[in-house]
């Protein structure tokens, strides 16, 4: 079905090692035995074992109301959806075996997999699917997925294993979104009360259909999952997956090195502490995110597309990828990340780094450099703005400094201001109270960016508006034919070069530091990788 490879990105290790590291390795070998795999009937050839992954806080074990990344990771294991992403991030069958879409694109009918049971033994049916999407669409449930499925008009149960989705308009990202966060919930346990109030379910006793099920929850400390003997797919190889709450990133690295964690994601700044460590491998995966400087188009400075393009030209983005990300990122053409291989317009050239052209373009837009080296407009006002970013992330803080220095060379004065993320979002970004902000979007694995860049959408925080882009974005999400869709998004990316909605800095790669005992990890971001957890195994130490 899908090839699960890894290590194609493994970094070289330095050859020389001090003796004490060898000593430490021997101790790992000696100490690692406390969680030795227990042989299970029917799995005698498998390695078994326990996989330990950190979270930063207790997750909410319900994919419809879960608000944070940690919860999403656990829920990917517990709650499969109708489809799931393969290694190219294309949807493949999961709880649904097959599907057909009507010619007008308004009805999609799914044939569900027979014989699937919930972790408590109750059969899974079409009624569960309908229940889940009724909840997703109901704001009172506490749903956080409603905007993903705003195009869904309703769900009909045709028979116990057939379900039809009615759409308000053709919606190409529909299947991808089904495999993104929309895990299916058990109707028999959750009906009758808002999902957010079902605290016993979503904190202690969640019931899904996934390859592992919850055995034990220890608040603030850990969640232990054990293999689900009734799982409908490939039998899981691991005995257990333990999610440990380890809030501090440095402590996560230390625990990985001490052999107490097996799979963590790190920032480029942490690379030095895992590279060359025996028993630890580093791999990198492009993820569906774009990091950008959002220029508030409602502010006079940034209204002109030429000014935004000139500022993009003034920032040495290659140098940021090399210096700040240590190469763990990809240069950007437009806002569609390279992880979306089918849609990224790699034949287009990115906006080049060219401060001289940037100066010329700014001069044409009325910003001239005076004898003091400061850019001023006709009224004599200097080109000055505030660049906001969230506090505490070294990658973003260093990136902001690099941007500030590049712009200063041009005579543009960008003052940096860091804020707590929640305050940044709530007090500045959402009310539109900012000049410029360094932030990022994590998007579903689909090129549809209607919500972010179409005129007047809730997530279009920079207030960008381009009528041609509007029609391309509307066309792109309504077009199901792949070549036509690709052409639409290619045109969108070409347009973004001339009228940049935001200055895309880079597409990051997720850096995973992994115990070399872990096998079967696909080359996907950790969240999507966890939807393939039945293939993971830990080699015996």
């Amino acid at each position, binding site marked *: 079905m899908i090839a699960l490879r890894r290590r194609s990105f493994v970094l070289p290790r330095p050859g020389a090692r001090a003796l004490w590291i060898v000593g430490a390795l021997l101790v790992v070998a000696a100490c690692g035995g406390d969680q030795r795999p227990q042989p299970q009937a029917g799995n005698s050839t498998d390695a078994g074992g326990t996989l330990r992954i950190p979270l930063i*806080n*207790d997750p909410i074990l319900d994919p419809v109301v879960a608000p944070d990344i940690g919860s999403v990771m656990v829920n990917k294991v517990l709650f499969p959806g109708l489809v799931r992403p393969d290694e190219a991030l294309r949807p493949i069958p999961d709880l649904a075996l097959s599907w057909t879409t009507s010619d007008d694109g308004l009805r999609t009918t799914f044939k569900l997999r027979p014989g699937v049971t919930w972790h408590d033994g109750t059969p899974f049916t079409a009624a569960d699917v309908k229940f889940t999407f009724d909840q997703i669409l109901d704001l009172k449930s*506490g749903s956080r997925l409603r905007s993903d499925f705003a195009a869904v008009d309703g769900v009909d149960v045709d028979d116990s294993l057939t379900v039809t989705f009615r759409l308000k308009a053709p919606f190409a990202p529909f299947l991808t979104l089904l495999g993104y966060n929309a895990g299916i919930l058990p109707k028999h346990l959750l009906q009758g009360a808002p999902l957010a109030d079902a*605290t016993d379910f979503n904190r202690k006793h969640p019931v899904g259909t996934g390859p592992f099920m919850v055995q034990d929850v220890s608040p603030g400390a850990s969640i232990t999952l054990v293999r689900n003997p009734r799982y409908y797919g490939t039998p899981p190889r691991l005995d257990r997956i333990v999610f*440990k709450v*380890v*809030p501090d990133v440095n402590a996560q690295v230390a*625990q990985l090195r001490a052999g107490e964690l097996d799979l963590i994601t790190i920032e480029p700044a942490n690379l030095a502490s895992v590279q060359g460590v025996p028993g630890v491998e580093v791999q990198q995966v492009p993820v569906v995110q774009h990091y950008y400087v959002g220029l508030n188009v409602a502010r006079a400075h940034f209204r002109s597309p030429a000014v935004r393009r000139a500022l993009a030209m003034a920032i040495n983005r290659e140098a940021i990828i090399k210096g700040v990300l240590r190469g763990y990122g990809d240069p950007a053409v437009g806002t569609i990340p390279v992880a979306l291989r089918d849609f990224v317009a790699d034949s287009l050239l990115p906006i080049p780094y060219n401060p001289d052209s940037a100066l010329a373009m700014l001069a044409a837009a009325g910003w001239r450099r005076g004898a003091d080296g400061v850019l001023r407009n006709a009224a004599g006002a200097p080109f000055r703005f505030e660049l906001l970013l969230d506090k505490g992330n070294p990658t973003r803080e260093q990136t902001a400094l690099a941007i500030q220095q590049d712009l200063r060379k041009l005579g543009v004065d960008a003052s940096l201001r860091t804020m707590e993320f929640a305050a940044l979002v709530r007090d500045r970004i959402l009310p539109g109270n900012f000049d410029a902000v360094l932030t990022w979007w994590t998007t579903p694995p689909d090129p549809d960016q209607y919500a972010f860049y179409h005129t007047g959408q809730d*997530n279009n925080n920079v207030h960008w508006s381009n009528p041609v882009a509007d029609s391309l974005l509307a066309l792109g999400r309504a077009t199901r034919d792949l070549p036509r869709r690709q052409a639409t998004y290619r045109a969108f990316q070409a347009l973004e070069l001339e009228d940049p909605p935001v200055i895309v800095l880079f597409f990051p790669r997720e850096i995973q530091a992994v115990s070399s005992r872990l096998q079967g990890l696909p080359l996907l971001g950790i969240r999507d990788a966890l939807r393939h957890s039945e293939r993971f195994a830990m080699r015996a130490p």
Partner: protein
Amino acid sequence: MAAFVLRRLGHAFLVLLLVATVTFTIVHAAPGGPALLADPKLSIAERDAIAQRLGVDRPLPVQYVRWLGALARGDLGNSFLYETSTVSTIAQRLPNTLLLAGAALLVSLLVAIPVAAWCAERPGGWLDRLAGAVALGAISIPVFWLGIVAILVFAVYLRLLPAGGVETIGGDGSLRDRLAHLILPTLVLAAAGTAELLRYTRSSARRQFARPFVRTARAKGVGERAVRWRHAMRNALVPVVTVIGLQLPRLVGGAAITETVFAWPGMGRLGIEAALARDYPLVMGITLLVSGGVLLASFLVDLAYLVLDPRIRLDA
């Protein structure tokens, strides 16, 4: 005695009410808002629905009156983050914090007081100078750094102790396993407090050793051990009890960094999490509990004076 306790209870009630009001004002004045609402991807409709569910869409005075009313009925509301009741959320974490803080206090007392007594009798001796240097280091080194270094040395390089958590997950939960997990966080949490206590006790003891009654006791032929402990140290410890009393709440509330570095599921870390996420009910609950702890500790300090110094009387 009963009147004394009643008066202190009355004071405590007023102080708690004041703390509640001030905390309520401060947490709501802090920039940002509940983390649940800080997801930039939420649509306006989704955000409104969440705000309504949390009750933060009402004007502040209304929220305050509702919160006080619920408090009067003993209801601290539900945590925004955990969606479980504030009381049970705290109750799950409190025992871990008490264990860690208690162990740290015990270590502090067992180390600081005998060493201080020794140093006070032999000022400028090798132990005095060594203890002074170590104490200065322990007070100066930030806890997060000390914690990470302790993990690197004892868990990563030497592999003697676990790097974090309260027990091995999936392990046997034995006492030995739990003790092994307790050692590093206890030592790290105890470091600064021990140093402070040591310095304070040493100077207090030095003053006592120089006082005439010590010379008198020695002249009467009292044994050196009795001079040291029954005469000098007993008097030296009266002000030290105050320092210990002040450390109690700091140990409980201030264990946050140690708990974070050692992945220790305690209340201090919960408090930081709650503050960062603007989980108003949880912040309020923890603040009230810690303030209650401070009041209780100062009450216990007063009682301890009675025991240590017979000259102090309740009616005085």
